[in-house]
């Protein structure tokens, strides 16, 4: 395509083998008008500086790999257009995560949190495959569907002011995932998960800043999930019993 222009990208570099602290590096590159931010980073990697490290794969906003801070805001870089920005762009690794290298952040802590909410269907009795499927009305599906859309891109952790100061906080995506299963009509694990949600550093640590929902690229609205989970945990605590399950 024609009408290429030049743009300056300031990118955080960090190689633990060499650098004591992160540094920044500037790249002046030609960009195309229809590029996403990721395209510019890929161009640098392929054509300018092979030592730059970042994660990406699907380039269609569904694999969740390419989250970075763009001008200080957590963004899925394959989803945001370069043309939304001026002539200069600051690109940093996702905030609130330890940095492995350059734009690559440590995910292990997140994966542990993710697993800790028991993100699977818990039932007293498992159904055999030959028995067919559960019945689930479209309305019952609607109750949790939104919360099942999370692509684990972790932008919400970068935006969350609680995570910033309490790295152990279970955090938006993991709580939303636990809540997604709690609200699934096929699941019977609410008591177990509510027990988890009443533990330290979980739902009640949330201050409902709503920042997670502001940055979520898939409109999961994790803040809604977390605060619904709070109410459920309170009711569960108050009754001391499993919430009677009933669909709308």
């Amino acid at each position, binding site marked *: 395509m024609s009408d290429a222009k030049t743009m300056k990208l300031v990118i955080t570099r960090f190689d633990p083998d060499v650098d004591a602290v992160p540094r920044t590096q500037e790249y002046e590159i030609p960009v195309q008008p229809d590029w996403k931010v990721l395209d510019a980073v890929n161009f640098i*990697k392929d054509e300018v500086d*092979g030592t730059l*490290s970042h994660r990406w*794969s699907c380039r269609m906003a569904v694999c*969740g790999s390419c989250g970075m801070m763009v001008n200080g805001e957590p963004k899925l870089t394959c989803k945001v257009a370069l043309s939304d920005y001026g002539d200069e762009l600051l690109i940093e690794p996702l905030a609130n995560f330890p940095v492995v*290298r350059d734009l690559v952040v440590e995910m292990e802590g997140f994966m542990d949190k993710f697993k800790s909410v028991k993100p699977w269907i818990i039932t007293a009795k498992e159904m055999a495959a030959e028995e067919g499927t559960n019945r689930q009305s479209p309305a019952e599906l609607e109750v949790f*569907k939104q919360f099942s859309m999370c692509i684990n891109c972790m932008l919400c952790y970068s935006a969350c002011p609680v995570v910033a100061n309490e790295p152990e906080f279970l955090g938006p995506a993991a709580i939303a995932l636990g809540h997604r299963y709690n609200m699934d009509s096929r699941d019977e694990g609410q008591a177990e998960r509510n027990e988890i949600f009443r533990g330290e550093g979980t739902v009640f640590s949330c201050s409902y800043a709503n920042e997670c929902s502001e940055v979520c690229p898939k409109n999961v609205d994790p803040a809604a999930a977390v605060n619904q989970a709070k109410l459920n945990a309170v009711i569960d605590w108050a009754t001391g019993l499993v919430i009677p399950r009933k669909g709308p």
Partner: protein
Amino acid sequence: MVDVARHDIVIVGGGAAGLRAAIAVAEASPDLSVALVSKVYPMRCHTVSAEGGAAAVARADDSFEMHGYDTVKGSDFLADQDVIRYFVEEAPAELNRLEHWGCPWSRNDDGSVATRAFGGMTTKRTWFATDKVGFHMLHTLFQHSMRFDSVVRYDEYFATKLLVDGGVCRGVAALDIRTGEVSAILGRAVILATGGAGRIFPFTTNGMIKTGDGMALAYRAGVPLKDMEFVQYHPTGLPGTGILITEATRGEGGYLKNSEGERFLVERDYGVGTKAELGPRDMISRAIIQEIEAGRAFKGPYGEYLHLDLTHLGEELIDKRLPFVRELGRIYIGVDPVYEPIPIRPVVHYMMGGVDTDIDGATTLPGLYAAGEVACVSLNGANRLGSNSLTECLVFGARAGLVAVEFANGSSAGNEDALRAQADEERAHIDALRGRVKGGEKISQLRREMTSAMEDGCGVYRHQDTLRACVQSLAQLRGRVSDLRLEDASRVFNTELISALELINMIDVAEAVAISALDRKESRGAHTCREYTARDDQNYLYHTLCSFDPAGPRLGKKDVTLGTWEPEERKY
């Protein structure tokens, strides 16, 4: 010396097939330790990008017979019919399991699972969860797999070599991307589930990670690649990016139109009959190319394109059943499909071919299994029907897992020293590649040359002369790739090193595709020769095998398993 990790079953690949295999092993034998080795975290695997659905007989007006016939006809009679029969019979149970594990399938009002129409399928048998089926299936499988403590994940480990002792595959050498260390991950059986190789082409729906790693691993270990010439072009990708616009758009009633506003699949004879937009992918892709060649296309900055028109479907249906398509249209091409047609053109989507396996997923190398797109179990023949592949990952992932358990139970652990020595060798090889500044070839340059050779030679329509040129270019690239220049000497998350290893894999796979294509002098399914326009059952009703040889690939043949359905003219 490299570190050694011992497990019972080693699975390479964390997508649908790999996870399904891991779950099958964990459920059947909780005492067996499973290593799940994946170069990306499982939820990043490319299954995530599948959109339209997963096929299995679900309705009263459907039958295994019909699903089987559709599949064999779609395959242009190159699929193995015993495989098809097993597949269609197992498919419903597999999708039921996904439902039990929490997959948010879209529902009918009575609470049953909804199904939609898909190309080449006679009736509505494609299960769906809006138009993010791969995403939901992958996340369901991944989350469900977390409950099994026997599954040990090696996330962001790049498997670079199969370790073979005594003629049996007993593990992999894998590079921990995080630390740069190579280790030997050993087991008594290995399952490959690394998916396809769309990135050998410049214009593909596939994510960056789809570089044919598993195919190359098996190939270099002496296992033939089967039916590699059959590369599926999806009719509807976005120009420029190649982002997939699901066939479900047509399943829900969308139209394909040329620049004259004509539904050419209805107005002209492209062999799809009354199926029109719901014809099989190979035929529709060819029809689009012919429309472009006839001058009935739009011109854009990324070449010529046609229109996929959903405007008559209405906002409500699009938001309910195709919300992702709307999102993709708006973000990646600036078109809201509720109001405007989507520009589309055929795009490389899927490899029908892959590692040669039997119905169990077993390869010719004892102890090595393969499932999913990396494998060629011969379900898809010369052309896959949309929505069969997600189900294939489940059916044959599970089967490979269970058969691997049987094999492992009757097999020893092998000679650890010998296996470790191979991994040591691999480490030396990788250490030599990392930061190899003395090289003269640029990774991105070779990659560009490879993909453009593939586009020229192995497109929707193939010419003998361009195919020959493609084979020559690839042979040359295979030589040049040994002189790669790498600037990054760091051991930590060295993605340049990964790119180099992926490029080496891709060139091997690309060469197998081109050589297999040059050898098949007929037109069948997705393989269409300009010079040989007819299907030739007399001479070519066989599977192509392509085996590695340092001097260049060697070709062989394998019989097609026929049975119920006799080859007939493929007319819809």
